[in-house]
């Protein structure tokens, strides 16, 4: 029994329920969530709470429909109904809006008085328990925030560790050739490297030092094949990352170079704007 309790908590905190509501789960995960929510009321309650919070969020992002759009859509429906009369539209009669439920309230005076009294008692109880709960809740919120910050820091460190591990694997792998791209006269201190693997046809760019370009410019990477430049795409200077950037693999490249070009790149390189170059 206690095993299952633990399990449900872990399941709830895994984030899968959030992803279910957002629609970012696989079919298999979706079926799993749907099965669990029928079985465990805690999971169902949690899901409803997530859905309601997001629903309220969506409400604040609502945008008034353009005037007449609802009428336009409804008249489109009328056309649809006319065109396939009776087939799949069994109920086209208008339904009275919920006002008919008010007929039931033939409540006499004392009953509404009693209900009013009960409601007042309810308010009293709500205020009392509400103030108690809000103290506890603010404690929990503080702790929760601390936990969240720790978790976020932990996730980021883990991600960085994975990235670094991948880079280490590339550096250690003999199948990768390391090609140093040295600075030209234009930027003698600039330096970059290419890791080039013909076996698995993967290429990574390691930007070590390149001057920050003007905002309307971007660096563009080129491979030289049989003396002709081949475009390998533009890139921005990463501000706070040391990651290798995966770039397209160009077969039989004899050299790589980086030029500074107008934003978005150009079809053939501007040679006087070459910053680094290196032969394979």
């Amino acid at each position: 029994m206690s095993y299952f309790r633990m399990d449900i908590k872990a399941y709830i905190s895994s984030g899968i329920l959030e992803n279910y509501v957002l629609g970012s789960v696989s079919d298999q995960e979706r079926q799993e969530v749907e099965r669990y929510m029928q079985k465990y009321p805690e999971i169902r309650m949690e899901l409803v709470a997530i859905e309601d919070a997001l629903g309220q969020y969506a409400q604040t992002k609502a945008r008034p429909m353009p005037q007449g759009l609802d009428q336009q859509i409804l008249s489109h429906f009328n056309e649809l109904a006319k065109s396939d009369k009776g087939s799949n539209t069994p109920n086209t009669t208008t339904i009275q809006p919920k006002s008919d439920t008010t007929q039931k309230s033939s409540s006499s005076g004392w009953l509404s008085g009693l209900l009013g009294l009960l409601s007042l008692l309810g308010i009293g109880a709500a205020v009392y328990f509400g103030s108690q709960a809000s103290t506890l809740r603010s404690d929990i919120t503080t702790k929760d925030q601390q936990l969240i910050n720790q978790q976020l820091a932990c996730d980021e460190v883990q991600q960085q560790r994975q990235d670094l591990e991948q880079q280490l694997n590339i550096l250690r792998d003999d199948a990768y050739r390391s090609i140093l791209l040295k600075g030209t006269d234009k930027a003698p201190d600039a330096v970059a490297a290419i890791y080039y693997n013909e076996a698995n046809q993967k290429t990574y760019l390691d930007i070590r030092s390149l001057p920050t370009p003007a905002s309307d410019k971007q660096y563009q990477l080129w491979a030289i094949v049989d003396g002709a430049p081949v475009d390998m795409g533009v890139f921005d200077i990463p501000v706070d990352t040391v990651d290798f950037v995966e770039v397209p693999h160009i077969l039989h490249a004899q050299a790589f170079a980086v030029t500074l070009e107008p934003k978005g790149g150009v079809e053939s390189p501007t040679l006087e704007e070459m910053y680094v170059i290196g032969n394979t």
Partner: protein
Amino acid sequence: MSGNSSNTDQELTSLLQKGDQQAIARILEKYGDALYGSIYQMVQSEAIAKDLMQDACVKIWKNGSSYDPNKGRLFTWILRIARNTALDKIRTEKFQRQQTSESIEQTVSNAVAHSEEMQIQDVGLQQVISRLDEKYRVIIDLIYLQGYTQKEATEALNIPLGTVKSRVKIAIRELRTLLNDCTLPIFIVMTILTIIEILLK
């Protein structure tokens, strides 16, 4: 979600399941602006958003019998249909998706500008939501309202997948905390309104 009684979703569901067109009128009344907000955020064009609203309504109506209230809220279901309708459009028309950090900023500033023109009834809720950190609002906007996959959000925001995942989780948790903190006053107001309603009868 709006001022309607809580059983309206049940009524809507039963109308939908019967294939009654009244369902669409009621859905538009209750959720139309929220659906339109999501679609508009995705396509940024009134003309296209209007067409997509109509397409989405037809899909909602045609698939009404497949909605199962045991699997989630009605709004989650119809928003998913609206989002997917817009996504199909974006994909087939080779719509340029806003994937640079610049246009994310644009999205944010649009959202801010737009919130200023919001109707007065949502001001309280608006204020609560505005206390949610901007990075959390952006991630919810992208994934929940604009139908980005987590991977697309990774590219758009230029942050690792792990961070997207944890940010989504934290964003919703924070949102819930903020909303919970304001449920007591809402509860009191609702109770008072109920009493007034009873006394008026």
